[in-house]
């Protein structure tokens, strides 16, 4: 799955971050990620649900069916211990990488980013 691999980090970390605050269903997660990123990260259902299942399988999340705020049953996801560990480690890595990338872009000047 080379295509999803590239978004994986960008999607997995926000999911883990959102779930650290408490269990949530897929829709709520998508909404809060969008909100927290000032509408920059738009989470498509097509990538969200496969990612949730993949992460559940990897043991980063667990899920259960519960009543939602609108009264309908929905699947709620919660972060596991392994998920917390992953968030911590990958979060640090992400910061380091994005800082490094930002630095490089700053040095390269405006022409490097194309204006």
């Amino acid at each position, binding site marked *: 799955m080379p295509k999803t691999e590239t978004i994986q980090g960008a999607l997995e970390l926000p999911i883990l971050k959102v779930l650290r605050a408490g269990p949530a269903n897929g829709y709520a997660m998508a909404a809060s990620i969008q909100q927290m990123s000032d509408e920059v990260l738009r989470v498509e259902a097509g990538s969200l*649900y496969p990612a949730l299942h993949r992460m559940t399988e990897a043991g980063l999340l667990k899920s259960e*069916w519960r009543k939602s705020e609108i009264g309908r049953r*929905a*699947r709620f996801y919660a972060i596991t211990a392994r998920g917390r560990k992953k968030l911590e480690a990958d979060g640090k890595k992400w910061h380091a990488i994005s800082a490094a990338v930002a630095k490089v872009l700053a040095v390269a000047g405006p022409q490097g980013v194309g204006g």
Partner: protein
Amino acid sequence: MSLWSRLSNAFRPPSNDEEIRDELEFHLTMDKELGQNDREARLRLGNPARIREEVREMHSIPALESLWSDVKHAIRRLSRDWQFAIAAVLILAFGIGVNTAIFTVVNALLLRPLAFPDSHRLVNLYQNVGERADPAGVSFPAYRDIAASTDAFSGVTAILPDDAQYQGPTGSQTVLVEYATSSFLDVLGYKLAAGRWFTTAEDRTGPEGAAVIGYRTWQTKFASDYGIIGQTIRINGAPVSVLGIGPAQLTSATHPALLTDFWLSMSAIAGVEADSFRAEILDRRGEMSFEVRARLKDGISVTQAQAAMDVVGRRLANDHPDTDPGKGIAVFPTDDVVIHPGEGDTLLALVTTIVMAIVALVLAIACSNLATLVLVRGSGRARELSVRLAIGATRWHLIRSFLAESVLLSLLGTAAGFVLSTWTLRYITALIPIRFDIQLDYRVLAFTLGLALATGIGFGLAPALRSTRIDLLAALRGESGSSLSLGKGWFTLKNALLVGQVAGSFFLLIGTAFFIRAVWSLQSQEPGFAVQGVALVGTNARYAGYGPAESQQIYRELQRRIAAIPGVQAVFATSGAPVGSSVGREIEVGSGSTWCSRHGRAGQTISGPPLSAWHPRRPRSARRRGPRKPTRRVRHLA
């Protein structure tokens, strides 16, 4: 997820498929709750089937699951298109089945070498190699000289194959025998299953004939009963005592496909062959009928053995100038000889090449037939393919489904071909009265399966690759449902196939015509006497245990009774019918009314009218009145 649950998920619709559906449904509901209209919400969600599929693929082994569904689809498509499927399977079945059977027979009869233990140390010896005189085997006296005068070999054995009549409890039956010397087992490297082999005393005329029963014959004819050892059986009416049971691994010492029923001692020849020219063969230098095999002594090469044989050959030519014209004795490694070195194997190579070429041509025609079918079908499916492409199938999906069909067809065809080839083999072996040891050649079956797969895949893939590149819109509108839209390349490929098929079929047809013509002209050949209306009855009173005097009585009585049958004009008895099955007899027609065997003994008309009764100058109508009796071919009538 464990491998097991992944595996089991692969073969059933995943149970959490429902959950994913509910989950996505919930997502949609939430979107709508929060003010989106239905259309917009659905657009934002994307294709739920795709999402479900993606999730499902995570929970199973995708390749396996899709393989299974590919196979299921292939079965469904083929059963919908059953005419095509049956045609393709039949083509494959004939191509594979018949060719496998024919190749198996050719291989068993002509190509497979005899496999003796340590056969690289075995050599065959031939007298008079190069002379056009027939089987340049070795005469028995020459064999004795070779065995006595050389130290190049650790052992030498002489073998004489023949067919004979075995008088069993259920009547007389044709069996294969091999006369063999006492050295036979040691030279070839076998051990008996039970009992003992012949001794040197039994290598000469005199003592009572002895027999060793072939292992398979012992199992079938004698129900694996050890009690047979020590008993006396009758072969060609002559009593021979059973000494033992032959090696389990050895079916025949003369040909790999034959099943030798009995090995007989040289001392048995006089009795068993009493009626034939072979009775005194052990003493005749001119009868070079024995197959002589020798095992090289350690450290002796074939070249050294040949040098030793040159010495013996010169001495033989010197001592017996009338029977050995000095052609010497040739040494051939047993592994290098299929039937006979020189002429025999050259002819064999020619025949084999022709048969193989025909087999290959038939196979090629079958393959190109299949290719055309698959091609035409593939091009006719452009519309179906473009629909599938439009609803989201990837090219790889389509190619995979084509492949699944091709492989399925090839496997079905091979299965049918396997059945057909076993039938064909059974039919071919049933045509031959002698028992043959022919097993289906699985390597050939594998080869033809490979060829079928290659054809199916090659010609299944070509249209798949091509069709998936077609113009979607045009194809959807039905404008390119036919092969016409598939471009010029198609025509050339199809034409090439067509031309190839026509050329191949034409070639085969001409070949067949020649064969038929040859057979027909053989049949219409004037033998010099009237064959129409003549019936041949073969029998031998001696096989039933009668003595010479009684036999004469029986033949006379037989003649009298046959003559009494209404419509029979003339009856006569003979020890050897002209142009019969007897080996090595020549007949002389025109100059007189006798025929001579090459061995100097005239075939004797025992009684009845002279041979002129067979002469063609008799009125046709008279001949036609003779009854046609079933003709049984037996070598000796009296």
